[in-house]
């Protein structure tokens, strides 16, 4: 690997080695994570460029990040409150606790799908660690969530003041867990999409189903009966990371409670393992990117 950081003026001692024999699994994961760290500035540039582009070519610019979750909330409120008549107290806030993180997740994943394929020309012409591409797109998508916090706090302060509590200070903690899971998932889809260009379609439908099967529009308590009757459903619900992410957000924003600490911790640790595995897959596939693209 070229290590530009060691460059000393014009007399630099850069050695570069490219070989058919590559490091083992642990070596590849370590190499991948070292690349992310050493190229953090590039990740920053890419993320900023990404944000600039997204804001530049729409009428309201970044205002959409505020309007969008509100409109989506309105759709679900009309659907559930008025049409299905399933009344949950303060349903707009209840549902917003799920829409906000889920929008962040989906936008991260959709951007990540094309993150590697979209840089086709660069990949064929410059040598750089490709892992930074999904990492940068996932990092840029964090802004989506940060902007979404504005309407959340507006809702809390203007309409649901009695629900507002100091527990919202735990939102960043839950967000870190979500980010760990998201980056692992994004790295996976970014690498697979190089080989199967229609993975985006598959992922889109898979994610829609995933949202409806996770306790986002409804509470975990609504699944109690099914979970009791069918151990398979119970296991699936327990293993779904989104069960605990949604429920934790709802605890701190809507219910004036602590997050599910234990379950969140498990999700976080498993996400790290997942990220290690998707990094490994990415690094294994990386040498063929320039040939396949």
């Amino acid at each position, binding site marked *: 690997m070229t290590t530009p950081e060691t460059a000393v003026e014009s007399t630099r001692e850069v050695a570069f080695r490219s070989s058919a024999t590559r490091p083992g699994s642990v070596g590849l994961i370590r190499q991948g994570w070292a690349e992310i760290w050493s190229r953090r500035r590039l990740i920053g540039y890419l993320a900023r460029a990404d944000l600039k582009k997204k804001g530049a070519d729409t009428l309201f610019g970044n205002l959409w990040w505020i309007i969008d979750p509100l409109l989506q909330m309105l759709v679900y409120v009309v659907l559930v409150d008025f049409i299905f008549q399933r009344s949950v107290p303060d349903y707009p806030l209840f549902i917003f606790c799920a829409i906000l993180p889920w929008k962040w997740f989906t936008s991260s994943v959709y951007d990540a799908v094309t993150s590697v394929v979209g840089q086709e020309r660069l990949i*064929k012409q410059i040598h750089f660690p490709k892992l930074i591409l999904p990492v940068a797109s996932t990092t840029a998508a964090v802004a989506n969530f940060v902007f979404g916090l504005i309407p959340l706090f507006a809702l809390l302060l203007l309409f649901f003041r009695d629900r507002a509590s100091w527990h919202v200070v735990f939102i960043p903690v839950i967000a870190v867990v979500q980010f760990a899971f998201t980056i692992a998932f994004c790295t996976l889809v970014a690498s697979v999409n190089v080989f199967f260009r229609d993975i985006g379609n598959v992922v889109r439908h898979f994610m829609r189903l995933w949202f409806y099967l996770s306790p986002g529009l409804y509470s975990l308590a609504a699944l109690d009966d099914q979970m009791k009757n069918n151990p398979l459903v119970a296991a699936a619900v327990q293993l779904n990371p989104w069960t605990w992410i949604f429920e934790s957000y709802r605890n701190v924003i809507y219910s004036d409670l602590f997050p599910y600490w234990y379950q969140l911790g498990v999700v976080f640790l498993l996400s790290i393992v997942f990220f290690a595995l998707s990094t490994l897959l990415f690094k294994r596939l990386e040498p063929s990117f320039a040939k396949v693209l």
Partner: protein
Amino acid sequence: MTVAPDSATPARTPVPVPETSGSVAGHPEADAAPRAVQERASAPVVIDVRNLGVKYSLRFTKKTTLRQSMANLFRRDGGPTEFWALRNVDFKLVHGESLAVIGPNGAGKSTLLQVLAGIITPSEGDIDVRGAISSLLTLGAGFDQDLTGRENIWLAGAFMGVPHSEMARRIEPIISFADIGIFIDAPIKTYSSGMRARLGFSIATSVDPDILLLDEVLATGDEVFRAKSKQRVLDLVHAAKAIVLVTHDMNWVTEFCNRAMLLEKGHVIAEGAPADVVKLHVEHSREARARKAAEIAAIGGAPITR
């Protein structure tokens, strides 16, 4: 000079490097070429390629969808599923040498440069490169259309792994050489193709590399800029410790290089003094043209017999 009899066999015979290279003496630009060939044995190796092979899997090349790859999986109608773009390539480049890689289209010349630049990982064998490498393969590639010229310079520097402080020093010379005036702070999508090419060239040549990889890049921009850019490339050629040049222009080979390598179908056919290798290449391509002409005549004249 002996030459491998069949282009398909990996065997090759190195041509002994003569004391003086085959450059045209007295030519104004020829002084780059006669690098100290005598020192070859003692000079440090900067590029070491051992048994290099690059394989392309035909199953996965080109945009695949799930359906197509399922179809590929079940289709067993034979046909090759892999293709070696390079095979059994061995060479060393020492400090002070400039190597020209020549050969017909599709011989693997550009693939070789891509491997040396680290863009493609070898399928077998290894390469060692000692020194900072710069490839002029990158002219204007991957400019972000929505960012300004200046932002793109920073981005390109970050992609190439140039440290921030060094980039801060380089940015003004890059801008002044590209000579695009106030457009430097306008989005790239507003640039003319000439401006884009100038900026790309300026970024790509702003480095002071130890090893320079060149892939026929001189046809850039208008007349004035072309003269300016040729001078820039010559400066780089003079400054670099080693050069690998891919070209179809035989004048460049004899003028700037003190070694040459002939690639055909991914194999090294000959290696040695530029004049000798160029001669062989010219012979081979004449034969190939004759063969092709005969084939065309056969197709045109009688039913095809292959």
